[in-house]
């Protein structure tokens, strides 16, 4: 293969190889290898998940009604999303209809998770790819205050506030305790913000950390506890009892009022802090429009947030569902999780074994048989210590999912693009994107970039904050009208189930399309497969040599400094990758694997 062309990208692995491992700053584990040409431009990219995923096999023979509790444990980030996907899969298999209130409460939990997850991502997992913490130390607090006040009415903006914060930061740096700030290439020329913008962003980094404590209360109220809320096949486990004042677990007026106040504060924080920061930071980076990858060609979303219960058709979904292929923005293709010809996973470049690896398998027929063989003519290292992978052989623990044979990007940019091209159904998305593009004075094609992905996440957060208000109002209206049903247990008893049943459950996790496929036989789980968002985006190559979204997104990006992978981290982080799904990493010395040690 050597050099070849695929999906409009010219891959050439003849240049200097650079290994970046691990690539996630806080959560997850992922490795990337790239080849640079003599101008330090990426001409080949190889993304590999360094862990084996297979919660499926733990579930064989167990009770389908329990699956959510196990799937909630596979990810360190999106616990509730997996649980929701799981109960939907079981409900789909058994034909269980859930009450309207259960749907609304699930929507509220999911929207709340989006806002929480996107905020944490922007400020704590991604901002430091754009914001230089050390530069913030040289900012003028008075000018920082002027900057902050020029872009937002957020009250924490006085010169004294920023001065105190800067002093705290200085103390932290001087004590050698940089903590999460230790991981950075401070001073790299790819950082473009003036010191004042850096200081403002660091202030909001800390404010967002603090704001989390409000957001998480919503899951505790609806899910009974956090960080592993309770779920229920057939509805939600929290009864509504508005006349009650203190029963454990019941939703009463006091708790609903608390939810309302948190929802309002979420909206306020997103509108007055997140979005202004995003626009301010983006305005300094709009000349850096790399990282689009597959987004201008193929995007996929399963959709989520059903307005009415039990209707998962695209017209009823407040987060859009569909696929765009070949950059044809005029056509939104319908997506069917149960069509064996649509979603298929390939393993020709993955450490698994299929009888015929030229073909893909639909998740209903999914096979997870490990076949760990790091090899190939360019492979260097040993089974336990890989120095360099050979992308022409098997090279990843991730399978390669494809939609009708196409590699797809999933996640916030995909969802926002699908909304943008359907303005009648999604006017909020269309209008907000247009307003952001106008404010930054960039064309619509600027969306197809790392920055576009990061902006799409912010726009989506704004949309979700708005949806949250409307879903809450809907819940209150239903309760006032006397509807307090939250669960349908008519099919709880396995004696009511058919001998065999298949179901597919989906959500849009914050980081992209998430599907669970279940086969139930004699009331037990016979097969259970998950395809998680980072498997789509981080996918290795397929039998045709097609590259996945991560690999595509790195192509043709120049590095400002060849020994500092800042631009690589920036682009991969923009996907909000999460390989924590079912992971366990045992590394005697974490950094040992790294060729370029990510600081």
């Amino acid at each position, binding site marked *: 293969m050597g050099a070849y062309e695929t999906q409009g990208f010219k891959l050439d692995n003849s240049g200097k190889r650079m290994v970046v491992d691990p690539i996630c700053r806080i959560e997850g584990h992922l490795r990337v290898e790239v080849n640079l040409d003599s101008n330090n431009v990426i001409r080949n990219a190889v993304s590999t998940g360094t862990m084996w995923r297979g919660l499926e096999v733990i579930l064989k023979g167990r009770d389908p009604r329990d699956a959510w*509790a196990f799937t909630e444990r596979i990810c360190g980030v999106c616990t509730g999303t997996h649980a929701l996907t799981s109960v939907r899969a079981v409900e789909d298999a058994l034909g269980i209809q859930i009450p309207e209130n259960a749907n609304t409460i699930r929507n509220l939990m999911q929207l709340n998770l989006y806002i929480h997850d996107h905020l944490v991502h922007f400020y704590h997992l991604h901002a430091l790819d754009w914001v230089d913490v050390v530069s913030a130390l040289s900012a003028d607090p008075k000018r920082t205050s002027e900057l902050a006040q020029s872009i937002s009415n957020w009250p924490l903006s006085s010169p004294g506030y920023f001065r105190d914060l800067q002093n705290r930061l200085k103390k*932290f740096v001087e004590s050698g305790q940089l903590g999460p700030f230790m991981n950075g290439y401070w001073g790299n020329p790819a950082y473009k913000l003036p010191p004042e913008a850096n200081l403002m962003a660091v202030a909001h980094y800390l404010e967002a950390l603090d704001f989390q404590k409000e957001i998480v209360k919503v899951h505790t109220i609806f899910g009974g506890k956090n960080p592993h809320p309770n779920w229920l096949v057939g509805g939600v486990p929290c009864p509504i009892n508005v006349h009650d004042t203190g029963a454990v677990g019941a939703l009463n007026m006091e708790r609903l009022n608390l939810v309302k106040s948190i929802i309002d504060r979420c909206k306020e924080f997103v509108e007055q802090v997140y979005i202004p920061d995003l626009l301010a930071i983006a305005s300094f980076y709009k000349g850096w429009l790399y990282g689009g990858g597959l987004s201008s060609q193929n995007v996929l979303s399963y959709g989520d947030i059903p307005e009415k219960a039990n209707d998962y058709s695209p017209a009823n979904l407040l987060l859009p569902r569909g696929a765009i292929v070949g950059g044809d923005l005029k056509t939104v293709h319908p997506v069917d999780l149960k069509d064996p010809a649509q979603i298929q996973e390939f393993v020709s470049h993955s450490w698994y074994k299929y009888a015929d690896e030229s073909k893909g398998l639909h998740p209903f027929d999914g096979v997870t048989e490990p076949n760990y063989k790091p090899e190939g003519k360019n492979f260097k290292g040993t*089974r*336990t210590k890989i120095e360099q992978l050979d992308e022409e052989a098997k090279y990843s623990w991730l399978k390669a999912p494809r939609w009708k044979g196409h590699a797809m990007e999933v996640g916030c940019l995909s969802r926002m693009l699908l909304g943008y091209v359907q303005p009648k159904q999604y006017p909020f998305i269309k209008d907000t994107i247009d307003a952001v593009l106008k404010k930054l004075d960039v064309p619509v094609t600027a969306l197809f970039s790392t920055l576009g992905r990061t902006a799409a996440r912010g726009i989506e957060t704004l949309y979700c904050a708005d949806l949250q208000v409307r879903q809450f109002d809907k819940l209150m209206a239903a309760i006032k009208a006397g509807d307090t049903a939250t669960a349908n247990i008519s099919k709880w008893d396995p004696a009511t189930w058919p001998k065999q049943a298949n179901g597919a459950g989906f959500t849009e996790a914050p980081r992209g399309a998430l599907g669970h496929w279940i086969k139930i036989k004699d009331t037990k789980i016979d097969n259970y497969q998950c395809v998680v968002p980072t498997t789509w985006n981080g996918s290795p190559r397929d039998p045709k040599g097609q590259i996945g979204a991560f690999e595509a997104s790195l192509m043709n990006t120049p590095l400002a400094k060849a020994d500092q992978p800042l631009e690589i981290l920036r682009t991969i982080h923009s996907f909000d990758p999460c390989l924590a799904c079912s992971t366990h990493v045992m590394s005697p010395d974490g950094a040992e694997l790294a060729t370029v040690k990510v600081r």
Partner: protein
Amino acid sequence: MNSKDTEVLVLGIGNLLWADEGFGVRCVEALAAGWTLPPGVSVMDGGTQGLALLPYIQAARRLLVFDAIDYGLPPGTLKVVEGDEVPRFMGVKKMSLHQTGFQEVLMAAEMTAQPPEELVLIGVQPEELEDYGGSLRPIVRERVADALALALARLEAWGFPARPTAEPVALNDGSLAIERYEAERPSAEAACRIGDARFLPCIGT
């Protein structure tokens, strides 16, 4: 800024799907099941969560953590570490993703000027982590009671004595309770029990 709603947070962390990695979670489950704790003490299964645990840690005056830690000691050894030593122990020999995450969380509590005033880590040296879908090994499972005794003594010293309870509280869904978790596990033939050779040296040779 330092508003502390919780006097003591007892937190179990780790992944109960990975054999001895489940130690921390099993400890808090046992605590909730066997003991009535005085007001001001809360018990939490933190799982493999990272930053999502920050709000609870910020709100706690004292933090007591159960976890499986690679101290380089014989399997089943319990070791208590306190104060500034804790992050160091949780970072040097990382056994799973959650430990990197948890170190960051402690640092974030520090940065937001709301760290716990006291911090105690009760860790066990695991025997087996490579058994995906497996449960605690006997030598580690036996230590749960000892770890609880250490925790109860510490709670008492802090002025929060616990009493044995007649009404056990189930911290997690019944399907995850250790007895059912173990009894309903699929067979080795049905469920592949190996993982990534670079991290799981058992198949790396």
